[in-house]
């Protein structure tokens, strides 16, 4: 029925409505009203997402809304080379992949909305905050529901705007607005590449409809594959190039190297924002983009191995940077960078469901961790330095328990959510068809090291905040139930979230997620088979890395106490605390030359252009002034000009007839 087909398209409309209402009338509302309005609209969207999920589950084709309109005029040359109009339609599509994403976005988004009602209590910009949050949800839903790249791009830019607005939410502090600008600008770089990718895709496929592009590959043929000496296969050049452009676009949004520097600074925003946008949803848009474009990436082995490598380097970069941070949110921010790297490894390996799996589990436990740290910050009166915390186990019992669950989940302890997704990533990269002779194993090893580091820094985070004795001066108190209930729900999800993607050897159809995404994001072809014992060894190694990381961290903290980071600092020369000097590198490599060029240009401007223009203006003015003698104001002076002109003209005519 028509109505059923269009129901899911209401999902982004509802929060957009909330945004409109709040931005127009929000100022007149008393405090909890905007929060309740915004939360309930997102909850309605969540209900719609559930309905859509139920609708789409038995289907093979994506659900398309029937209300659509021509939105971009486009011309395509047909077989005879004649240009025919083929306008792009603005439309939404709900398939299994986007259905999972809508559930995550609206579900987690709803919980964070509720949490924020408590967290933002008393803030001047209460209604503005919820207006932005609703706007973000709407744009994110447009992003995942888009059935073509330009529509996706609308959402892509929209979430960028929302992110900018929310990072700089407390814009009176220049540090915050700087961070917002940084995020925006770095994102623009990625967006430019995404646009290039779109152009290239349009040239190659004559369409920008995602589903048409994906289905145009059929299911078998990898066109035009050549193998070069490293053993890595390459697809057709335009495809590889388009995939690389998309990868750079995704890297911007998902804070992958080299565009990763904005995410840690983005923690300047309110903590619910960090949880929602910069951990759970928006930053996974890059992963979603790669999974969404699975047809392209599955047929672009070269670009896919790049995805893996970028993911691996980012993962290790984020993990190393997280070790020595002292800001409770910065640790989680670098951890997010690292985990996003994990997701890129997964989608790069060709196992797209694994990437989405980690997106989901990561959304659960990272949102949980961020909200917990928000609860902690709230409790200790705005303090963010972990060295000023400690011993909060007794004072914040609820927060403590859920944080412990989150820590163990992200560390990858069986049977919490992170264990299954991390294991799935490691085994998929080990068997990846894009790994070549060497890359797959190397990335697998990096992943293992990162798992070890993750467990280590997360345990450090947990013990510095909750264990030991309190080192600060505030009077911590547990948060209200409007904040703790979302924490409990997220904690529960972090525990059971992993069961949607159990490993294969436990039974034939136990991996529900892979089966669910079989149509929407099928695996690339050519995964290696490894025997059961091999898989068991992989799992054991991952688990060992996690446990080893925790134990190692315990040992260091027992030895060095609060200043455990000092141990790192003395050995790596502040590299970790300064996030491996990536920001500094940008300063030297990009900012300094840009600044130099700008200064030179400014000199040229003031001394060259300005003077030239000034001289021109003065010259014109002087010429005008000298001509203004004629405008004497005397009527007779004007009249004689008329007379003389007439005399000359008539005289000329007379002379001409005479000649």
């Amino acid at each position, binding site marked *: 029925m028509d109505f059923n087909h269009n129901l899911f398209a209401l999902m982004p409309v509802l929060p957009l409505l909330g945004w409109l209402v709040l931005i127009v009338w929000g100022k007149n509302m008393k405090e909890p009203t905007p929060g309740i309005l915004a939360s309930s609209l997102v909850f309605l969207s969540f209900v719609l997402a559930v309905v859509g999920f139920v609708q789409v589950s038995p289907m093979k084709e994506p659900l398309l809304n029937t209300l659509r309109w021509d939105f971009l005029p486009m011309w395509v040359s047909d077989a005879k080379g004649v240009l025919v109009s083929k306008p792009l339609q603005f439309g939404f599509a709900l398939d299994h992949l986007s259905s999972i994403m809508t559930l995550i976005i609206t579900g987690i988004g709803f919980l964070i909305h509720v949490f924020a009602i408590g967290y933002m209590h008393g803030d001047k910009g209460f209604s503005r905050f919820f207006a932005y949050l609703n706007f973000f949800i709407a744009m994110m839903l447009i992003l995942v529901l888009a059935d073509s790249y330009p529509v996706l791009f609308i959402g892509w830019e929209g979430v960028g705007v929302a992110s900018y607005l929310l990072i700089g939410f407390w814009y009176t502090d220049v540090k915050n607005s700087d961070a917002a600008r940084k995020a925006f600008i770095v994102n623009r770089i990625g967006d430019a590449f995404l646009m290039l990718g779109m152009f290239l895709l349009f040239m190659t496929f004559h369409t920008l409809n995602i589903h048409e592009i994906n289905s145009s590959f059929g299911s078998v043929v990898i066109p035009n594959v050549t193998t070069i000496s490293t053993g890595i296969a390459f697809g057709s050049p335009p495809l590889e190039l388009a995939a690389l452009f998309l990868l750079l676009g995704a890297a911007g949004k998902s804070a992958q190297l080299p565009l990763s520097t904005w995410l840690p600074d983005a923690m300047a925003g309110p903590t619910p924002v960090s949880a929602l946008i910069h951990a759970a949803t928006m930053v996974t848009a890059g992963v979603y983009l790669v999974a969404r474009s699975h047809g392209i990436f599955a047929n672009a082995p070269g670009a896919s191995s790049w995805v893996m490598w970028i993911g691996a380097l980012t993962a290790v970069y984020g993990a190393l940077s997280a070790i020595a941070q002292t800001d409770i949110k910065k640790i989680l921010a670098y951890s997010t960078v690292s985990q996003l790297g994990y997701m890129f490894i997964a989608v790069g390996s060709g196992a797209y469901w694994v990437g989405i799996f980690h997106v989901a589990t990561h959304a659960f436990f990272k949102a949980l961790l961020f909200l917990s740290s928000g609860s902690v910050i709230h409790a200790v009166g705005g303090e963010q330095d972990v060295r000023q915390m400690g011993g909060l186990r007794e004072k914040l019992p609820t927060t403590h328990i859920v944080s412990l669950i989150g820590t163990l989940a992200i560390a990858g302890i069986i049977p919490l959510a992170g264990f299954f997704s991390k294991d799935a990533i490691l085994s998929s990269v080990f068997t990846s068809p894009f790994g070549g002779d060497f890359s797959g194993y190397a990335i697998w090893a990096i992943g293992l090291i990162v798992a070890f580091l993750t467990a280590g820094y997360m345990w450090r985070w947990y013990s510095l905040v909750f264990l030991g004795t309190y080192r600060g001066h505030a009077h911590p108190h547990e948060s209200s139930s409007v904040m703790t209930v979302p924490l409990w729900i997220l904690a529960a999800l972090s525990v059971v979230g992993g069961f949607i993607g159990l490993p294969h050897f436990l039974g034939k159809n136990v991996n529900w997620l892979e089966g669910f995404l079989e149509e929407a994001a099928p695996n690339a072809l050519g995964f290696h088979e490894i025997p059961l014992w091999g898989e068991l060894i992989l799992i054991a190694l991952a688990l060992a890395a996690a446990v080893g990381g925790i134990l190692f961290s315990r040992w260091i903290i027992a030895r060095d106490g609060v200043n455990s980071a000092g141990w790192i600092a003395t050995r790596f020369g502040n590299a970790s605390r300064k996030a491996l000097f990536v920001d500094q590198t940008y300063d030297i490599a990009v900012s300094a030359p840009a600044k130099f060029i700008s200064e030179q240009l400014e000199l040229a401007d003031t001394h060259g252009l300005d003077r030239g223009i000034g001289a021109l203006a003065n010259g014109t003015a002087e010429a005008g002034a000298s001509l203004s003698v004629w405008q004497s104001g005397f009527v007779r*002076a004007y009249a004689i000009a008329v*007379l003389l002109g007439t005399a000359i003209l*008539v*005289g000329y005519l*007379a002379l001409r007839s005479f000649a």
Partner: protein
Amino acid sequence: MVVFVILAVLAIAGAIGTISFKSGIYSALSLVGTLLTLAMMYVTLHAQFLASVQVMVYAGAIMVLFLFVIMLLNESQMSGADPLPWVQPVAIAGGIVLAAALAFTAFQFKAPKNLETATAALQGGTPGAIGETLFTKFLLPFEAVSILLLIAAIGAVSLVHRQPAHNEALETTSEHATDNAYSDETSSNPAKVVA
């Protein structure tokens, strides 16, 4: 031809008088002379109706209006040095060039028809003949010009119309009063106190 020469001399003499008398009244009267001469010339050109209109409207009404204004303003002779002394010789030279060029061009004119037959077609330029043209081919301009005359009459009235003063007594008693004619009458105007 003799008549023409006499009339032409008279017309030119009147024109020169118009531009050379210092007094505005003499100037205007000289122009009346020229206009009357031209009216006579219109008769020789078989434009009887125009000749009478010229006498009545131009030499009569319009020039009387001029004279009225000249006398109303009663302006003394132009005083002070001419700020544009160079205009006069240049103007005379330019005028001579223009007259010569125009006259020279005039003698290039080739009569398109035999003058006698053409003259006959004019029917003497009687009011009946003119009226036929005016109310057929020239109907629209005729009506338009009547509206224009109406507008001009209203415009002239509004231009010279004396602004209605709120307080005529004040106006006559105090110079400030005209400036303050529109100001709040209850304000503490010293002029009012004096009044």
